[in-house]
């Protein structure tokens, strides 16, 4: 039996807000904002008090001071007299360098792995599967440390491995012939590394830290991309390639013109997030001593005590890279969808 007596609307308390959706919405939001403001405010107040008590001056003035530490040779010149700001820039360039190289190499290896996983040849797909399982079920940091320990176990410069003429591999890194610029014709010459003292002089070189990080990031990400490529190809309806075959297209053209364009739509979004992961995972460099952005941030905050500023700066830079990369990838994704017209 339905009651006909109308209750008068409650004026206050939980019932008052629950009876009016708009009032309730405002109350909930105000409450959420208030909680956040109170927490952030309390933490900020406590932090300021603590900093004052410890005599730590806040602010980004430390960026202009001389860093006083050395960084292994890289694309940007750096000496201990340069500023912290320049040191962090060197770190950022190192992060981008290893990330971009890793992304390129991992994409190539990953596509090859994805294709191998789908191979009709059982041994090939079994090897690819074993590789993917081993890589995906162990921590990336463990893999990095493993590669780094292998690099360190290499012989010394005097007994360096010499797999190709002019190429030397020892625990100081990989040394190989590289171009050098000259003032006169033909302006460019090939410089070969030569054993001198405790190391090699001349040519181009790769530090063991860089090599371990690059190999680790590449092999790890390739396994992820391989699975994405495989999933993308499998996601294309079988009828598509059958229809193309009925039209008389060759296997290669079916793959190139029919299957891959459709698979790309499935492949690109998760691959973009793998690319982001490469940039973020490159921060594991801190564990093996490659001077990436986070390693330099770590050194900076240990020397200056400016923990909050240094970490906030590093986080902001990573966030910026992540956001711009995901924007670029979204744009590319949209272009692919446009070019492909309507999705099936």
């Amino acid at each position, binding site marked *: 039996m339905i009651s006909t007596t109308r209750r008068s609307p409650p004026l206050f308390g939980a019932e008052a807000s*629950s009876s009016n959706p708009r009032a309730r*919405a405002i109350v*909930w*939001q*105000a409450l*959420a*904002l208030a909680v*956040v403001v109170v927490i952030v405010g309390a*933490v900020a107040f*406590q*932090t300021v*008090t*603590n*900093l004052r*008590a410890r005599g730590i001056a806040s602010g980004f003035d430390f960026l202009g001071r001389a860093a006083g530490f050395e960084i292994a040779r890289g694309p940007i010149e750096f000496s201990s007299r340069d500023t912290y700001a320049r040191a962090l820039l060197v770190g950022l360039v190192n992060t981008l360098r290893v990330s971009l190289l890793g992304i390129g190499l991992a994409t190539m290896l990953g596509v090859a792995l994805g294709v191998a996983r789908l191979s*009709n*040849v*059982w*041994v*090939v797909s079994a*090897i690819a599967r074993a590789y993917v*399982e*081993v890589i*995906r*079920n*162990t*921590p*990336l*940091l*463990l893999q990095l*440390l*493993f590669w*780094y*320990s*292998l690099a*360190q*176990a290499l012989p010394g410069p005097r007994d360096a491995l010499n797999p190709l003429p002019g190429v030397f591999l020892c625990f100081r890194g990989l040394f190989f012939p590289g171009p050098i610029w000259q003032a006169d014709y033909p302006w460019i010459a090939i410089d070969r590394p030569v054993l001198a003292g405790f190391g090699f002089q001349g040519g181009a070189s790769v530090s063991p830290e860089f090599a371990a990080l690059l190999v680790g990031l590449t092999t790890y990400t390739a396994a992820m991309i391989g699975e994405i490529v495989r999933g993308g190809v499998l996601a294309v309806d079988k009828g598509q390639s059958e229809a193309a075959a009925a039209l008389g297209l060759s296997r290669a053209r079916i793959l190139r013109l029919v299957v891959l364009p459709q698979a790309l739509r499935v492949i690109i979004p998760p691959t973009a997030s793998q690319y982001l992961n490469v940039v*973020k*995972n490159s*921060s*594991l460099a*801190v*564990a093996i001593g490659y001077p990436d952005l*986070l390693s330099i*941030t*770590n050194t900076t*905050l240990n020397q200056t005590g400016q*923990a*909050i500023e240094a*970490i906030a700066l*590093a*986080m902001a830079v*990573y*966030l910026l890279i*992540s*956001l711009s990369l995901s924007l670029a990838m979204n744009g590319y994704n949209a272009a692919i969808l446009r070019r492909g017209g309507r999705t099936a």
Partner: protein
Amino acid sequence: MRAMAHLAAAIRRAPMLRDRSNAIATAILGAAIAYAGFRLVEWGIVNAIWSLPRDGGSEACRAARGEGACWAVITERARFILCGAYPFDQQWRPAGACLLFVSLYAASTVRTLWDWRLLLLWILLPTAAVTLLRGGVFGLSGVPTEFWGGLPLTLLLSTVGFATAFPFAIGLALGRRSELPAIRGLCIAYIELVRGVPLVTFLFMAAMMFPLFVPQGLTVDKLLRAQVAIVMFVAAYVAEVLRGGLQAIPRGQYEAAASLGLPYWPSTILIVLPQVLRISIPSLVNTFIAFFKDTSLVIVIGLFDLLGAGKAVLVDAKWVGFGAEVYLFVAFIYFAFCYGVSQYSRHLERLLMADGRHRLVDKTI
């Protein structure tokens, strides 16, 4: 004779000999694999050194470098790698803690327990494991957290981290789909901020910045700080998994709940969340595996989890240079856990797919 015919047919049907290209590839690659396997057995078993003379150095191992593995580092240091610096005579406690965590994983695979009982287990067993490690009650001696290490620390950080992050993740996922702009904005900001930065920066924040956030004189345990950082980080990722689940629930479910006159919270708790949790389970398991591996990053702030304890062994002058052996051992343990769980996740995915939606819906939690 018939048996022979069967055998011949089976060989002909074997995947590696299906056709000519398979047979050729099998022959070539098989030879390469056999050679690699032979060299591996030679290094890892035939020429390997399993033990060293007592109180001696590692000269025998160094002499065999490159020829044979030095498993002596494992046989001598396994207890340190597995239990860290935990007091030697008390190491049955970390072993017990590992057992508790493993039985929690085992119990989680029993589908008949998928209701409030599983929730209870995920609260009770980790609490029991922490109590066992911590001591100070039931006549157990107290062991401060700086002595905790090895496998139990890895299991603790990932399991407690995941379990604690879960309620926050539900809140974030619901908040991100909320119709209230302020709540939605806060949740989106938090999730995207966390997902845009590496976990290591969060751990650094926990190690170096947390002490500045709390009143002076109040020291928060380093392990607890790392755990809080992991919880904050995991919550954002789990929230995204749950958001996927929320989007997968058909609109009719919300509408049916609304037409019954159910307000937001009852319909969310009774109708929506049980379905979301069920369809999200495979993704949740995958996220758990990812963070199980990622807890190894705590070594950058000086905690000795399974990987950290392995790395610490290599600092000893006696064992410098035997990284390959130690890391292979540690990798084997991680692999055993992750592969086991991921195979289960795949099995579950197939099962839930075959089950169809109806079976999923009728047995609500």
